[in-house]
C-alpha cells in the first residue's frame, strides 16, 4: 500500500501528520496516532524544532485555537498535551511518560455548565468538549526535566534548567535552576554551584 507524503513510513497507525503541523527535517515522530485528537486550525498548530521528538503515548489533544511548540532537541516520551491556548516547550527539555500538560480544564467548573456541554458532546463526531472555558498558557523553559506522571496545570511557567520530580502536580511557577516535587509541588532546593558548574550562563 502506498503512503502519502504526510504519512510516516514506519507508522503502525494509518493516520497522517496534519497539514498545519510543521516538522523540521531532523525531528522524529514515532506515530501519527499522537494526532488523533488534534484539531487546531492555527498555522503551525504544532511546531517541531531541530532534533525534537515525540514518542508513542504522546497525544496532542489540541483545540481549534491551540498551539504547541517543541524546541530544538526537546524530547517528549509520552505526554497528554491538552491545549486550547499555548504550550511552549523549550530547547533540550525532557518530558517523561504519562505527563499531563494542560492549559485548560476543558469543561466548566460549575455543574450546570458541565451538564450542558456533556449533553452536546455525544452529538459531535469526535465527542470532544468545545465549551468556552479559560485557557492560560504553559511555558516550559529550556533544559527543563519533568518526571513521569507529573501534571502541569494551566498558567504555569517552569524556568530554565529546573527539575520536576515524578508524580508531582505543578500548580504555580517554578523558578529557573530549581528542583521542585510533590503534590502539590513545592520547591525542594535550588541547584547547587557544583551542579551548575559547567553550565554556560
Amino acid at each position, binding site marked *: 500500500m502506498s503512503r502519502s507524503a504526510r504519512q510516516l513510513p514506519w507508522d503502525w497507525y494509518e493516520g497522517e501528520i496534519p497539514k498545519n503541523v510543521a516538522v523540521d527535517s531532523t525531528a522524529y515522530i514515532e506515530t501519527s496516532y499522537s494526532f488523533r485528537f488534534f484539531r487546531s486550525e492555527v498555522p503551525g498548530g504544532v511546531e517541531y524544532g531541530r532534533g525534537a521528538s515525540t514518542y508513542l503515548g504522546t497525544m496532542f489533544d489540541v483545540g481549534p485555537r491551540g498551539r504547541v511548540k517543541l524546541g530544538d532537541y526537546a524530547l517528549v516520551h509520552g505526554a497528554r498535551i491538552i491545549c486550547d491556548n499555548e504550550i511552549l516547550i523549550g530547547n533540550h527539555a525532557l518530558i517523561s511518560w504519562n505527563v499531563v500538560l494542560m492549559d485548560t480544564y476543558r469543561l466548566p467548573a460549575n455543574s450546570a455548565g458541565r451538564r450542558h456541554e456533556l449533553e452536546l458532546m455525544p452529538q459531535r463526531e469526535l465527542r470532544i468538549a468545545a465549551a468556552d472555558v479559560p485557557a492560560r498558557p504553559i511555558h516550559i523553559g529550556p533544559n527543563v526535566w519533568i518526571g513521569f506522571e*507529573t501534571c502541569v496545570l494551566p498558567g504555569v511557567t517552569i524556568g530554565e534548567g529546573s527539575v520536576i520530580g515524578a508524580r508531582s*502536580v505543578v500548580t504555580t511557577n517554578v523558578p529557573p535552576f530549581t528542583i521542585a516535587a510533590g503534590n502539590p509541588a513545592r520547591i525542594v532546593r535550588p541547584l547547587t554551584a557544583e551542579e551548575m558548574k559547567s553550565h554556560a550562563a
Partner: protein
Amino acid sequence: MNRDKQSEPSQPGRWVDGTLPPNVRLGQNTIITGDLAFKRFHCHEPDALCIGAHCTMDGVHFDLGEAGRMIIGDYCYFTNAVLLCELEICIGNYVVIGWNTTVADSDFHPIAPAERIADAVACSPLGKGRPRPPVVKQAVIIEDDVWIGPNATILKGVRIGTGALVEPGSLITRDVPPRARVMGNPAEIIGEVA
C-alpha cells in the same frame, strides 16, 4: 470514534472495537472504544456492567473480578480510565473522569505478611486450585456531577459527593464532601465549587 460513522442520537450503545460480553448493558448512544476495554473482564454474572445513555468511554479498562459489579449513569465521559472492580463501583450521571485515572474498590492483596505469602503462592503458576486469603473490598461511590482530573487515583471505600471536583493527580483515600475541591497526595480539601 473517528474510525466509525458519525453517531446518531438514536443509535444503540456499542463497543467500536469488538463484540460486547453478553452481561454488559449499554444505554442508547453510548460508545466504548479501545481494544483493551474488556481484556480483564472476568465476571460472568448477569448485568455485571450497566452503563446508561449518551456516555463516551474512550480507552477505558473495565477490569471486573468474578464478583465485581459496576453501574455507570447517563452522560458520563471517561478518558483512558482504569476501573478495577472486585465488589462494586457505582457512578452517577454527568461524571467526568480524566485521562489515566484509576478507580479501585480493593487492595487486591492482604496487608498481613503471612497472608500475603499465601496469596503470592495462590496467585503463582504453582497455585492452581489453592484458595486465596480474604482481601478487603469496599464499594466506591461517585455521585452525580463529579469531575475527576487526569492521573488521579480513587481507592476503596470512598464516596465522592455530588458536584465535587478532584484536581489532577490527586490520591483519594477518604470521602469527599459534596461540592468540595480536593487536591494532593493524600488529597485535602482546598476549596468549594463556586
